[in-house]
């Protein structure tokens, strides 16, 4: 019947597309909802309660948990630690990763092997990486033995010096994430059209000028990916701290927000306080990632 909504070409197409979309997307959306969204919402709700693991009665605490956190010096310390680690982890592997990618962006068996070598730490678990580094950084470990051989009186206390331990952990994270950045940058470098380099070369541009005017703008998407991934990795650092220092040396000298959340919630049984801190962590990550994404995506170039 002409004019019937059932035969309206646009609406029929919309319905069909919606049905198709639902068929493919609903299972995934359901799993995402159950495994990600529900726990996030539940955590946010718990942050407004005084829930503890063993107390049967849970009461509404309003903003009480948040206000206690903001008045707690230890919270500001773990927040500062988290920002320091994140800053180092965002900058160092990004810069070194780009440099190494430029060196490895050649075709031969050796370079392909080297790419695998750099990527290996990425596939190792944080626990394994931490155990390996723990043995290297022991007072009588390999690193200090080398330093002593080079004439240093006694090597640094990499993990037991409160002024150094946070940087040692950051260094290990950088080492582990470096391979990821290298691979992403190599993929980015491979996507730069050769014609652009050739044109720049014909215009008399030197290597630096070609990098600045051709390569750098064209790998902007890789910079975005690496920066966001490193930001998130820095903010959620947990297992390295657990294995290497357990939050020490001293009171929370290396504790991150993620570590403190687990400490409060699992060891300390204060579920409400842990949930409030996790909510703050979520808000910070969302805000910073959102701003960084927006800023970096502005300079992305698509050909």
């Amino acid at each position, binding site marked *: 019947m002409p004019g019937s909504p059932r035969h309206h070409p646009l609406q029929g197409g919309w319905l069909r597309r919606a049905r198709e979309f639902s068929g493919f997307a609903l299972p995934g959306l359901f799993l995402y909802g159950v495994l990600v969204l529900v726990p996030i919402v539940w955590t946010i709700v718990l942050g407004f309660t005084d829930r503890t693991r063993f107390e*049967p009665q849970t009461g509404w605490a309003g903003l009480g948990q948040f206000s206690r956190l903001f008045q707690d010096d230890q919270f500001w310390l773990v927040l500062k630690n988290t920002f320091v680690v994140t800053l180092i982890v965002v900058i160092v592997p990004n810069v070194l990763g780009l440099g190494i990618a430029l060196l490895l962006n050649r075709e031969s068996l050796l370079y392909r092997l080297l790419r695998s070598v750099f990527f290996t730490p990425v596939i190792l678990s944080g626990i394994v990486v931490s155990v390996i580094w723990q043995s290297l950084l022991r007072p*009588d470990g390999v690193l200090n033995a080398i330093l002593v051989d080079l004439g240093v009186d006694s090597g640094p206390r990499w993990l*037991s010096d409160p002024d150094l331990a946070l940087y040692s952990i950051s260094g290990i994270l950088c080492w582990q994430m470096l391979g990821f950045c290298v691979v992403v940058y190599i993929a980015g470098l491979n996507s730069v059209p050769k014609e652009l380099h050739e044109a720049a070369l014909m215009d008399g541009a030197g290597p630096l000028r070609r990098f600045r005017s051709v390569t750098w703008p064209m790998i902007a998407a890789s910079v975005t990916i690496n920066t966001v991934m490193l930001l998130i990795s820095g903010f959620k650092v947990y297992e390295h701290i657990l294995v290497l220092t*357990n939050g020490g040396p001293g009171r929370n*000298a290396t504790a991150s927000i993620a570590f403190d959340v687990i400490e409060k919630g699992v060891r300390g049984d204060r579920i409400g306080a842990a949930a409030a801190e996790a909510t703050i962590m979520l808000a910070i990550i969302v805000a910073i990632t959102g701003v960084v994404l927006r800023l970096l995506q502005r300079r992305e170039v698509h050909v």
Partner: protein
Amino acid sequence: MLTFETPNLPASLWDSAIARVSAKVPGIKIKKLVTPNVDRTTYAKQLASSGQLPDIMMAVNPQGFAEGGQLAEFTPEELKDYAYPESGAINGKIYQLPTNAQPQSLLYYNKDDFAKAGIGKVPTTWAEFLDACAKLKTAGITPIAVGGGGQDTFASMYAWAGVLATDVFLQDPDFNKEIKSGARNFTDPAFVKATEKIAQLSKLGYLDKEGTSRSYADHEKAFRAGSAAMYPMGSWFATSVDNDKPPFGVGVFAWPSDDGKAVVPNLTGGGISVSAKAENLDLAKKFALEWTKDKETADAFTKADGTFNTVAGYKPPADMGPLFQETLAVYDKAVKDGTVTPAFSIEQGDNGLPAEFTVPIQQIAVELLDGTSDAATVAKKLNDEYAALQ
């Protein structure tokens, strides 16, 4: 059944004990579960969160679980064979069998280092102890090993627990209770004075500060390799030495005090707890009680971990090694002299501090050992941390 494995307590020891005790409890079927690391309490909490609290748990701190109604209470009748049936009580009730006495800590020492430094006899007073440390340092030997690195922050406590035993808990065994009631706090002069002793050891360079980055296993290895002359440690170290002798002689003495009393900080407890929701509660409790009363199992654990079984009338195997015998003699003398005290941060139950306060205390202990915080700062930090938990 939730178990844990350490170098002293390997899988084979647990398996044979489970098989032996199961045979004595008809109808029971035990499925062994092993904690991923020595922190079995945290693992038990994770299991409880997902409704999987094991029916039977070995050496899990009952605090929190008990108040939350998750553990079964042991009756006075069931505890009648224990020498200290009220140890570890929570609100006056027992939720963990008080199976073992474990001095934590004693001072194990390298006899060769003492001889090299010209120390004729072990120190009994604090002044003699400082004198011994000075002689060791002069001889180029680091006097005291300390630990607490990696995940094993607990190992930072053993020196501090020693001086707090001599200077605080010997005079006032209820110190922890008074902290909880608000009658005292950590800036109490006796607490600060005892803490100052560790700060002084740190300042004088008597502590092997590198140890604060060593895991527990590496901490023991380092002492065995001669990193320091004295090793403040729990009594389990005795069997470790008896079973695997280091290349030097090892002796043991109690913590020296100002007036020469030999003080032993100690934890009696560490046994089995049973879930209140166990599928067959009676059978699970029967297994728990049989485990501690079974002489062969008690002997196996005594030999492996150097625990002093507190079931009345229990005698350790006659072939126990010399350091175990020496350690037991130090403990027995302290029991006789009335100088056994609660161990700070290790004591559990009504006379212990809240379980969630343990890690902050251990981390602050590292600052004390390291010299990054003095006694007054440590005391203030403890007060602040404790207040934050309330």
